[in-house]
């Protein structure tokens, strides 16, 4: 008997060991790559696009973006030829392309000047300026020096001339923090650095400051100020550069109808030009004050003798645009109108210029201006030297999808003009003459994704069910009828499968376009004719609804990434910044009400909270609602555990402080029925609040419902929010400031309340839905003491459940702190300095540095089979958890953390890391078990499946979910369960998007792809035939035996 027990134990341990091993060994099969996952490489919204012709036939499009990326795009397809992603704090301020080289200037105080090979994207040479105490915010500009490979740049607080290969500048001019220098204008032997002068008490008005420097020697020739009231970057200022006449600045004062022209480097002459004379039209002063100016060419290599700019103004409430060319003879300066056109009802969204080829030797090559009108549709015209456009085109486009057009660029492919329009939502579309469809487009809105929610889609309805629903919806009320209809449909499918040759010639389900839809044209892909409303049987195809800081809400299929719908949200024409997306009404079988998503963000106009409720399947505003701007700015948003029964909508809680610093909880929808639903919830709502990173305390609140029904009824009329009473205050210890708080991401499901140990005893998990992990920064760089504090607190009572300190931990924007809670496990990661960070200690200590991943498992008790016997969990019964921790060495720097999720949480979980090396790495939960023995495992530990502890977490390439895709800038990882318990969807987003599915415990509930249904049928048939043939033979044999 005893032997039997030990045998069963051995068997159990073997099973567990095999289970854990198989889990560790799982990987991606080559045929799954690109079939179960998809990747979209993005660059961000371009802040500048420069077309550049390598030669007569090859053109390139070079872009710098607000996601700090430099990219080369194919002019023919818009695909990324190459891209270079800069650091998260390295804003790219300047881009110049010349002689097959691209020049960038990036960073703020620590400035980097880099020259790239435009064809391959390789770094040719670079220069880095260390931080400078005198640096003025906003400074930074760079230009190629003509007829030389040198570069002149404003780096930190200096103007430098750099030459390839040299580690120090040819010369350096300290700028002494007198202005934020944003522009360099180069002439043959002179460099003018122009900036916004620092306001002084004596002279608080903005004005421009110029430093004139000799290009050869670096000596300062003069320094002066001009243009009072003007800033370098303004739509009332243009810089004009002429080979013949020199460099000029043209500006108009804010409330003045006179244009001033200044020749850089000369205090005299300075000209005044009257508006009316310039446009040769009589205008009312009010109209003159509306005029704005655009530069059409800022590349000195392209500058003509007669530089041009564009001016727009209003006349009779209509927008007029003129192209102005500058002439100078002697002391006389003249502006001539070369082309002019009127936009009847629309706004010129932008303009640009390009010659068919970059021909510096031929400055008089035809130059063109593109005018884009963007009222309902986008219509564009290209003008050269006359009022008649040389090329025109229209683009059928709705501003509701990606926002209004904000800029346009002209380039040429094989001599044919192309117009690139950009919208404020992040769409970049290439247009060609005579076509209303874009040639290609890039949707860069999702490179600004801030939140994402998965929406379950209904499984495909059989055509019989669909027909029945269409003819008589009541038929489907009976489950029997539905069952019969489903059988009928299955029978039909079998027949069609047999008639189609047993599927030999059909594609596999995954191969029929990953989205399950036929290939779309460019226009259809941009604005899908029909949204994706049906999922699949396995729950692999859902909608992922993204909210972005660029105002775009977009729904994509999780399979293939096909766009379902896009909605641009704007307050007074300005894109709102969306922070949160909630699915507030799910798809319900047999329900006629559409699923809803509620997006919460902030208006960029007022800073107040905005809320929009959208139909999750179409992106339309739900029930004729519209974007609502609330009279407050929220501090926190979360889902409330209540449903408005009137319209079956999940409630959202919006926490805000009134001007008296009283905390309130607003609810959405803010209706009487929602308020009643909220107050009907038996458990009170608790939430924690802080002032964001850097705050020194954390407070807990409880939302208070009105005491009486009558007060509740009056709630809707007064449309006020619920008061929140402060329950507790958690003051951080002296010298500590908050880094972040981490709670549970949505509702958690738990399959096992405890953990079965090797001796069959159970260690019960501490499952507290109100657990909040608080991370604090200890000390600062000045004192040299560094570290982080970790506090696990209960949100209801504010009681401290566990705390620890990690000395010498260092958290910065570049070395982020990451944390995630899942079931009874808290995982966090930080950079470990290894020694106190004083300069001296840092220099002399050699303790190991690296990212450390700490895992804390919370159990109800340290003794097995001991648990809190109360029937319901209560935060007020303070039971301190038993915390088991372990630290691991992270394989590589990570930028995001996530955990896989399955339907019932029976499958094991994988911890997913978004690595800085553009990989998505998924490591099994067992690896992070803090109970892993730090010696040889005992029999019980082996039986429990514990692998001996090893500090480094290995980077097993077989566990890289993103395989050969370089998923850049992963900032968030989200997971969603599928209908298969084994499988979890994983989405990573940040700069790029990457979706895949993974099975942490193996695909135990799926047939292997190599399983042949044909073989099964053939074998069954063969057996049946065998029986039919063998039966008579056996019968005959038996008969013969009986006669014998």
């Amino acid at each position, binding site marked *: 008997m005893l032997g039997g027990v030990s045998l069963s134990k051995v068997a159990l341990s073997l099973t567990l060991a095999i289970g854990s091993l198989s889990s560790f*060994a*799982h*990987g*991606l*099969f*080559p*045929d799954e*790559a690109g079939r179960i996952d998809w990747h979209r490489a993005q660059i961000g919204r371009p802040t500048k696009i420069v077309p550049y012709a390598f030669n007569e036939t090859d053109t390139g499009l070079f872009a710098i973006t607000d996601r700090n990326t430099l990219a080369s795009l194919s002019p023919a397809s818009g695909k990324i030829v190459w*891209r270079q992603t800069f*650091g998260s704090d390295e804003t790219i301020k300047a881009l110049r392309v010349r002689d097959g080289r691209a020049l960038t200037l990036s960073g703020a105080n*620590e400035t980097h000047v880099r020259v790239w090979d435009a064809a*391959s*994207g*390789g*770094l*040719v040479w*670079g220069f*880095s*300026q*260390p931080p*400078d*105490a005198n640096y003025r915010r906003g400074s930074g500009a760079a230009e190629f020096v003509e007829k030389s490979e040198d570069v002149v740049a404003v780096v930190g607080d200096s103007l430098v001339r750099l030459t390839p290969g040299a*580690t*120090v500048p040819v010369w*350096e*001019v300290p700028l002494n923090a007198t202005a934020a220098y944003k522009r360099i204008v180069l002439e043959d032997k002179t460099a003018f650095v122009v900036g916004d002068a620092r306001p002084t008490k004596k002279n608080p008005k903005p004005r421009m400051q110029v430093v004139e420097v000799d290009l050869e*020697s*670096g000596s*300062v020739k003069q320094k002066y100020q001009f243009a009072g009231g003007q800033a370098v970057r303004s739509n009332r200022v243009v810089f004009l550069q002429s080979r013949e006449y020199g460099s000029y600045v043209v500006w108009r004062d804010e409330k003045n109808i006179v244009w001033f022209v200044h020749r850089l480097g000369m205090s005299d002459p300075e000209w005044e030009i009257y508006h009316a004379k310039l446009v040769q039209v009589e205008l009312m002063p009010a109209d003159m004050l509306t005029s704005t100016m655009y530069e059409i060419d800022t590349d000195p290599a392209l500058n003509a003798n007669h530089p041009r700019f564009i001016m727009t103004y209003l006349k009779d409430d209509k927008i007029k645009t003129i192209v102005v060319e500058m002439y100078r003879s002697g002391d006389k300066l003249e502006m001539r109108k070369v082309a002019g056109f009127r936009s009847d009802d629309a706004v010129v969204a932008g303009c640009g210029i390009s010659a068919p080829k970059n021909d510096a030797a031929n400055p008089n090559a035809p130059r063109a201006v593109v005018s884009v009108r963007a009222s309902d549709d986008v219509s564009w015209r290209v003008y050269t030297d006359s009022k008649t456009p040389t090329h025109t085109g229209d683009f059928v486009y709705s501003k509701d999808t990606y926002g209004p057009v904000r800029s346009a660029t002209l380039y040429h492919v094989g001599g044919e003009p192309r117009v690139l329009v950009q919208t404020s939502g992040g769409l970049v579309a290439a247009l060609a003459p005579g076509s209303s469809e874009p040639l290609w487009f890039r949707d860069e809105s999702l490179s600004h994704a801030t939140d994402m929610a998965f929406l379950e889609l209904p499984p495909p309805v059989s055509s019989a069910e669909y027909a029945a629903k269409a003819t008589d919806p009541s038929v489907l009320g009976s489950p029997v009828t539905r069952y019969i209809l489903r059988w009928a449909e299955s029978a039909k499918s079998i027949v069609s499968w047999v008639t189609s040759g047993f599927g030999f010639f059909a594609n596999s389900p995954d191969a029929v376009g990953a989205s399950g839809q036929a290939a779309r044209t460019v226009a259809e892909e941009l604005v899908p004719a029909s949204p994706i409303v049906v999922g699949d049987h396995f729950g692999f195809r859902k909608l992922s609804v993204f909210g972005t800081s660029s105002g775009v809400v977009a729904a994509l299929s999780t399979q293939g990434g096909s766009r379902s719908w896009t909605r641009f949200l704007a307050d007074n024409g300005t894109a709102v910044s969306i922070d949160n997306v909630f699915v507030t009404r799910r798809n319900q079988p047999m329900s006629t009400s559409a699923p809803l998503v509620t997006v919460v963000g902030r208006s960029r106009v007022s800073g107040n909270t905005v809320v929009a409720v959208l139909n999750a399947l179409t992106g339309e505003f739900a029930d004729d609602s519209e974007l609502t701007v609330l009279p407050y700015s929220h501090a926190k948003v979360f889902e409330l555990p209540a449903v408005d029964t009137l319209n079956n909508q999940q409630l959202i809680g919006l926490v805000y402080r009134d001007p008296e610093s009283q905390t309130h909880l607003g609810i959405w929808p803010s209706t009487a029925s929602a308020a009643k639903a909220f107050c009907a919830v038996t458990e009170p709502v608790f939430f924690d609040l802080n002032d964001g990173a850097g705050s020194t305390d954390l407070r807990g609140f409880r939302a208070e419902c009105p005491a009486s029904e009558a007060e509740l009824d009056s709630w809707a009329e007064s449309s006020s929010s619920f008061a929140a009473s402060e329950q507790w205050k958690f003051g951080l210890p002296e010298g500590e400031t908050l880094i972040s708080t981490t709670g549970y991401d949505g509702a958690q499901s738990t399959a096992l309340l405890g953990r079965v140990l090797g001796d069959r005893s159970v260690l019960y998990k501490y499952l507290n839905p109100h657990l909040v992990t608080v991370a604090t920064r200890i000390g600062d760089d000045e004192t040299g003491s560094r570290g982080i504090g970790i506090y696990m607190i209960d949100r209801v009572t504010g009681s401290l459940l566990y705390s620890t300190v990690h000395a010498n931990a260092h958290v910065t924007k*570049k*070395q982020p702190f990451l944390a995630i809670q899942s079931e009874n496990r808290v995982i966090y990661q930080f*950079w470990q300095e290894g020694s106190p960070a004083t*300069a001296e200690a*840092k*220099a002399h*200590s*050699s*303790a*190991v*540095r*690296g*990212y450390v991943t700490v895992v804390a498992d919370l159990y109800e008790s340290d003794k097995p089979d001991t648990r809190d016997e109360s029937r319901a969990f209560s935060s007020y019964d303070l039971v301190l958890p038993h915390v088991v921790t372990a630290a691991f*060495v992270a*394989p*590589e*720097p990570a930028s995001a953390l996530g955990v896989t999720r399955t339907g019932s949480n029976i499958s094991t979980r994988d911890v997913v890391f978004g690595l*800085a*090396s*553009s*990989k998505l790495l998924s490591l099994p939960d067992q690896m992070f078990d803090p109970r892993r023995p730090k010696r040889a495992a005992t029999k019980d530990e082996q039986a429990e499946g514990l692998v001996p502890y*090893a*500090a*480094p977490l290995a*980077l097993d390439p*077989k566990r*890289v979910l993103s*395989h*050969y895709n*370089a998923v850049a800038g992963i900032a968030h990882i989200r997971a969603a369960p599928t209908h298969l318990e084994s499988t979890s969807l994983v989405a990573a987003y940040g700069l790029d998007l990457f979706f895949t599915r993974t099975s942490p415990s193996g695909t135990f509930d799926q047939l292997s792809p*190599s399983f042949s249904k044909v073989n099964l049928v053939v074998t069954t048939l063969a057996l049946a035939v065998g029986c039919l043939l063998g039966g008579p033979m056996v019968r005959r044999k038996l008969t013969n035996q009986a006669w014998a």
Partner: protein
Amino acid sequence: MRAPATWSMLALVQSLIVLLLALTFASATDPAANADSPGSPKTYRLRGAITANDILPDPAVLATTARVQVNGGEHTAFIQPDGAFSVDNLSLGHSLFEIASANYSFPKIHIHISLNEQGRAAIAARYVQPGADWSEDAPVLPYPLRIAATAKYDFYTPRQGFSIISMFSNPYMMMVGASLVAVFLLPKLQANIDPEILDEMNKKTKG
């Protein structure tokens, strides 16, 4: 315009020094290292190159896909098509040097920038193992650094094709095999037994 002497000062701040350190730390240093820099703390430049080997025949593939990272992202640098890189603005002390590449694995390196007795900066670079102590006893790598890829990641698990052995090692197939043995072989064995012994055995079992 500053005087040329000041330039060398700045040169110190911006770039630096960095020297070939043989095992003895005896190193030649940039003369600029002796100069003092007013205001800003001294910073140093680390130079090196990724060399081609059988695993990575052409370092140019890293130019747009990999980065040099020091201290987990505190400093980053791009890699030139010929494999060369330089990391600027490093301060004195110990740092962890890594190459963040999507497709290739590189060794991790412990960088120690220190000032010697003459006040000159020197760099000692050593390979480190993740999770192990940073030993000063490990051999110092030549400077400028020359690093080679240690592996090209293979992300895929090949599918197992049809195999007779794996088919028969399936527990179900083993059970079927055992049943077949019981059905076909056992009667034959029984038939071969001497009838007298069989009777005896039958009696025993009955008894």
